[in-house]
């Protein structure tokens, strides 16, 4: 009895485990899954957790990675013509993931490795079309507001997204951006030639600019210096005038006896002008030499 019940319990547990193994399955948080009933995709599962199904061969489960894939299939440059007929090499990177596992399974029974080449083709052709709508200046531009770089990326993304939805890929594209932008090899040589001549222009401009600007700076300095000096001279004149104005209030004093004042001033002037290195020639009319020839002394002595 006891042994039998033990066997029954163990057996029951084994049966439950076996049933679990057949019917239950986990979907990890990184996965999406789809349950097929007799080979037909019936239940897409996009939420992680413990799930149940009928045992095979009734139902089977297919799991896919639902994380964002960053496939490197666009690693090669592709040459397209821009709207203004310039050849332009571009390569983009994309982030995509499986959004509808049931649709995806129907379309790509072999999974991601089958989907990638098709997606690559689709992205490539869409990109060519979009690049063909834009002139080169939309990609690189020194104008105000910069290039329309991001706008072009968004345009390609929208176009790819539309095609994915219309064609039932079961994929969604999260982002698409340029990875490289280049020019055909032959064009690079021309670009180098143009760059070199641009540099030469800059060289001569720098030389001319330098001389001209230096000359300007110098003459400007001289002009400013002479302005400062003339302003100073003007100021000096003003001060002189001020001095004369101040002096004029003493005129009243001299006015009392103008003849005396004039005499005194002349005496001072005489004294000042004959200070040094002067030779003076007199006749006997000038005092005190009147003493020499005249009869002043005789007059005085006779008194």
């Amino acid at each position, binding site marked *: 009895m006891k042994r039998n019940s033990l066997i029954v319990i163990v057996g029951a547990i084994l049966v439950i485990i076996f049933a679990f193994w057949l019917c239950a399955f986990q979907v990890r948080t990184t996965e999406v899954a789809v349950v097929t009933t007799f080979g037909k995709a019936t239940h897409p599962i996009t939420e992680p957790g413990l799930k149940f199904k009928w045992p095979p061969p009734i139902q089977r489960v297919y799991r896919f990675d639902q994380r964002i894939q960053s496939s490197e299939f666009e690693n090669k440059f592709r040459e397209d013509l821009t709207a203004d007929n310039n050849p332009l090499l571009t390569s983009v990177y994309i982030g995509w993931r499986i959004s509808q596992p049931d649709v995806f399974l129907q379309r790509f029974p072999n999974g991601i490795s089958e989907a990638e080449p098709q997606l690559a083709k689709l992205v490539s052709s869409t990109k060519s079309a979009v690049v063909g709508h834009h002139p080169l200046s939309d990609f*690189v531009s020194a104008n105000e507001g910069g290039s329309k770089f991001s706008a072009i990326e968004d345009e390609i993304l929208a176009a790819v997204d539309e095609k994915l939805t219309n064609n039932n890929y079961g994929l969604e594209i999260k982002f698409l951006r340029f990875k490289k932008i280049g020019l055909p090899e032959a064009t690079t040589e021309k670009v180098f030639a143009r760059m070199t001549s641009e540099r030469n222009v800059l060289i001569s401009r720098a030389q001319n600019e330098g001389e001209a600007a230096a000359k300007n700076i110098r003459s400007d300095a001289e002009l400013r210096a002479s302005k400062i000096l003339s302003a100073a001279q003007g100021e000096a004149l003003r001060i002189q005038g001020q001095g004369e104005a101040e002096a004029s209030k003493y005129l009243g004093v001299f006015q009392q006896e103008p003849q*005396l004042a004039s005499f005194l001033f002349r005496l001072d002037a005489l004294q000042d002008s004959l200070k040094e290195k002067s030779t003076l020639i007199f006749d006997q009319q000038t005092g005190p030499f009147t003493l020499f020839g005249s009869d002043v002394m005789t007059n005085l002595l006779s008194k």
Partner: protein
Amino acid sequence: MNEDHSHPHGDHEHPHPPEMPADSGSQALTEALRSSFNIVRLVMFVLVVVFFVHGIFQVKPNERAIILHFGKPRGEGTQALLGPGLHWSYPYPIDEVEKVSVTGVQKVESTVGWYATTREQELAGTEPPAGNTLNPALDGYTITADANIIHVRSTLTYHVVDPVQYVFGFVAASNIVQDALNNAIVYASANFKVDDILTKDKAGFQAAIEKRAIELLDKENVGVAVDQCDVQTTWPRQQNVKTAFAAVLSAQLDRDRLLQDASTYTNQVLTAAVASSNSIVNLAEAQRVQYVSDISSRATNFLSILPWYRTNANLFVQQRFNETMGRVLTNLQEKIYVPERLDGKTRELRLLLNSEPPKPSTATTNQ
């Protein structure tokens, strides 16, 4: 242990013996079964202990862990993160533990924009020979806003801030970071002119790359924070282009030196002008003061001698004049007296003037 355990079992099984054969063989079998049952119980006990102990796991300080319960994270978003310490989970396949490094700083290097070179060549400081063209399959480069070709490369360091997103959101998150950096290089180049990138606005260019990379990583919700973004740029290595670029730099240096000289000259000239203007004004001021005080003292003097003059004007004038003449004549170097001719005719006098007055002798007399 076994002895203690055997007692309750013994009591329990007492009612049964009548049904069992009482021979010694079957008794031995019973004993054997009983002891093996005990062993099974011990094994089960050990298994239970192992079960619980095995579920314990450790999270290191620079790690976070997430328990996936039947594949689903326990908790929402960042709440699902377990910090450093000991934790417990059911064994696989019920629970699964994912550990993520968070403080570890990670680094990616851009893969576009730089010419073909190898690490060995870089360490040795040598460069592969540059042809006349750039092969798009081998040589990376970017195109600037003014359609010049330059080389740019960048290193981006970042750390994970949202491990759930970083690990469970992307197949290869570091590739996404790298491509965001690549895009940022191409994007920033397309918006900057070559001279700004290489010389005038290096910092602005670097900031633009960093800004774009951060923007993209935020938009794509990669769950990382950018720590640093180093950018290196250079002009093309093609011989003519290289020489031309270097020549522009040296021409600009020359120009700057000329301008520098000119501004030094300006400073000198202006300083001199200001100094002499100051001295002109000061001199004028001094002269004014002197003039005014001179007049003032003359006026005072005039007032003091006025009464004397009024007393006898003639005598006063004579006295003053002669006194002054006396003083003047003392100072004079040469005095020539020409008496009147006795016949009253005009005397003719001829002077031979030296263009240059004799110096040494006058100097002494002047003192």
